[in-house]
């Protein structure tokens, strides 16, 4: 059988970064081919070129043996390649039917035929087994339902290749089952599926082959029947677990944060505490509320009931800046939107915390820049930010170096409790190890650390204690030998608190 898709020597060179390095990849009809790799390994770059969102610097893409070059996502779709990105291409204010027919509008004369589109949309959704009202506004749907709408959009033309980018990241167990049934039916129809996921436990259920990428290059392509989880992880990281995650000594100090019965938007009656000298991990699916819990603690969203007490003081409902000044610091998972000022240099970004947000202004209204500069240098040295990067706009730095700058901000703030929300998103392995060492130093110096993470190995290996969230509730608190992947996953899908 001929290959559905074949790439030869596919390369993408960005200024200063080789994102993809001579990648040979192929996909057969009726096959699920997994792309596996760290954040930044080149998976996204590869699929963006297959999807037509990006053009290669070198190399070729062949579809059904014919050389193709896409200038736009539309062109790729016209050839039957459809991609469901993590960022959905849905217009939240329009209805499901309007979204499905966006760009494919049915007309009666010069006017849109809304009734026909609703009917066709209903038919398409039913055929795919999705129980969604075509007249519903997309913004009112759950993330899983939005994803179903997104997938439905693929079925206008003659679908040959479906690219799914982390499709299960925000789905519950039952929804995942449903998705996999659907994938199986597509396979039976001869559609080839490129599947990106970090969830290694899913691969055996659906995949025929796995291609592992690291630093933009293919490390290897293996048949799922010839490999196992450990081998794949070793291929992905190039090292074993204990070389990445440092052992953090636990010296349980005084309780620094106590949260009792906290109810906030998306959070129901959460109670827990954090002690000095420990790392508290927080795990859960996307949408489980793990991030929202701490955004409420930080005063970023309103507290509806319950209390938050920090260092013995009741800070329930306090303003975020007062909480930060009191010694708690939150590092946003989205460093571009909420973390850094991208047009400014690393030094400027760090100065903000030293100058504008500092707890000790020293009484004088005037800044002594010499002192500030010394401090930014100290912090930059500490987070191992190369001197050549310090005076460059942050937008020009790699994800790993941006994350180092973000970490530096909590040193500038001299916080006692630091909440890292997804601390290693989009960060390469080497930098990850360096960031974990910083967390280790902070914890061992007696700071209290919270690590919120969607990366389960990270959450389990870096923390002393683990909170698991599901549906806005704390479904488990695990420590020691109870902290196994099976246990954690069980509580991920804990439905006891679910609202139906």
């Amino acid at each position, binding site marked *: 059988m001929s290959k559905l898709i074949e790439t030869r020597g596919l390369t993408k060179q960005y200024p200063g970064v080789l994102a993809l390095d001579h990648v040979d990849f192929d996909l057969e009809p009726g096959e699920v081919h997994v792309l596996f790799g760290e954040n930044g390994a080149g998976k996204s770059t590869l699929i963006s070129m297959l999807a037509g969102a990006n053009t290669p610097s070198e190399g070729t893409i062949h579809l059904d043996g014919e050389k193709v070059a896409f200038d736009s996502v539309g062109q790729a779709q016209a050839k039957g390649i459809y991609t469901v990105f993590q960022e959905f291409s849905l217009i939240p204010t329009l209805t499901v039917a309007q979204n499905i027919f966006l760009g494919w509008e049915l007309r009666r004369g010069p006017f849109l035929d809304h009734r026909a589109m609703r009917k066709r949309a209903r038919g398409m959704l039913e055929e795919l087994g999705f129980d969604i009202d075509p007249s519903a506004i997309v913004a009112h749907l759950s993330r899983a339902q939005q994803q179903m709408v997104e997938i439905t959009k693929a079925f206008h033309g003659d679908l040959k290749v479906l690219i799914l980018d982390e499709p299960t990241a925000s789905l519950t167990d039952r929804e995942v089952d449903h998705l996999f049934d659907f994938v199986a039916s597509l396979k039976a129809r001869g559609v080839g599926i490129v599947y990106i996921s970090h969830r290694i436990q899913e691969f055996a259920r659906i995949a025929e082959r796995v291609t592992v990428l690291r630093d933009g290059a293919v490390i290897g392509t293996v048949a799922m029947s010839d490999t196992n989880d450990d081998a794949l992880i070793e291929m992905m990281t190039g090292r074993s677990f204990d070389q990445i995650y440092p052992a953090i000594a636990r010296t349980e100090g005084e309780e620094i944060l106590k949260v009792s019965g906290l109810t906030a938007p998306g959070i129901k009656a959460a109670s827990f505490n954090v002690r000095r000298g420990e790392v508290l991990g927080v795990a859960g699916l996307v949408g489980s509320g793990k991030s929202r819990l701490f955004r409420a603690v930080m005063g970023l969203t309103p507290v509806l009931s319950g209390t938050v007490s920090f260092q013995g003081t009741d800070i329930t409902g306090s303003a975020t*800046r007062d909480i930060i000044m009191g010694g708690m610091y939150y590092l946003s998972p989205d460093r571009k939107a*909420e973390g850094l000022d991208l047009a*400014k240099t690393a030094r400027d970004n760090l100065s*903000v*915390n030293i100058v*504008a947000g500092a707890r000790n*202004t020293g009484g004088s209204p005037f*800044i002594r820049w010499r002192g500030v500069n010394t401090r930014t240098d100290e912090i930059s040295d500490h987070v191992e930010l190369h001197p050549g990067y310090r005076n460059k706009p942050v*937008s*020009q730095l790699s994800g790993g170096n941006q994350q180092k700058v973000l970490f530096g901000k909590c040193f500038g703030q001299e916080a006692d409790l630091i909440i890292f929300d997804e601390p290693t998103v989009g960060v390469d392995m080497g930098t990850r190890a360096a960031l974990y060492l910083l967390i280790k130093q902070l914890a061992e110096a007696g700071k209290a650390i919270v690590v919120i993470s969607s990366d389960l190995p990270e959450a389990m290996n870096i923390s002393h204690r683990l909170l698991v969230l599901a549906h806005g509730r704390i479904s488990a608190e695990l420590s020691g030998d109870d902290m196994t992947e099976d246990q954690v996953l069980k509580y991920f899908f804990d439905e006891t608190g679910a609202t139906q």
Partner: protein
Amino acid sequence: MTSAAATSSFPGLIRKIFVRVGVLPFFLLGALVVFTLLSPKFLTGQNLVNVMRQSVYLVLVSLGQMLVLISGGFDLSVGTAIALTSVVSATAMVFLAGIFPDAIWLVILLGAFAGFAAAACVGLLNGIGVAYFDVSPFIMTLGVSSLAGGAALFLTGGVPVSGLPFAFADIFGFGRLWGVPVPVIVAVICIAAMWIFMSRTALGTQVYAVGGNIKAAHLSAINTKRTLMMAYVICALIASLTGLLLTARVESGEANLGGTIALESIAACVIAGVSLRGGIGRVENVVLGGFFIVLVQNGMNLAQISSYMQMVLLGALLILAVIFDQLRYRMIMSGS
């Protein structure tokens, strides 16, 4: 190595200056060449001193405008803050002079305070709308502009307020101290204060941080609402000070003062490299930017270009500056 080689070449140097300071040096050079060719009177010491004296008012307003632009907004109501200050302070002075004819300094002082208070209300309104209700700065300051402008006209019935104390116009309009015009001295003090504020105080740093990324600033313990509020209030107060100087200059309270200054001050800032996205801008460049706009107007006057045509050219200049700002921002973000 490659970057060092690139900057040593001439295009590389141009690029570097452009990314650093913006489009101003090139515009300034262009204006000097063009107007020198068009009029022999242009490049004379006398004329340049004249331009410098005339540019005081725009430079002042631009300083306030810069503050708001750096905070990530803009202020279309600076012109009506000037008008309102003018009629309120003039009305107050005329009224108070009738009560305390002998305490002329007290009259001037209280009158000025009345003007400042009126402008502070304009700034507060802008600040409350933008910071606390998330109204877009465009629509908020546009609305306030109509509101304050209407109030100024309503207070006077559109008739200029005359009969100001003689000393007021004599000192603040035409006076000199050590041979230097008083408005110039006021401007120099404001420029110095603004420079210190923006580069040497925590509050100034906060304005840059809020304009650069307001969410990141919020997560860095900065009181973003108060910072925005402060930016609009200071902007209105500086406009108010300008209004007082202009009132002294024209010797009456006029509701039509500052009619075109909102556009001119935004143009001055953008040309001087203040980013419309916020977070970027320098006091010393803005001073030059204000000077540049007045220089161009002066050059056009000498070249006998009609005032209608001048409006056309000024608008074109602003658009051009914004396009260059866009290019520059892209260069900063991607690395040049």
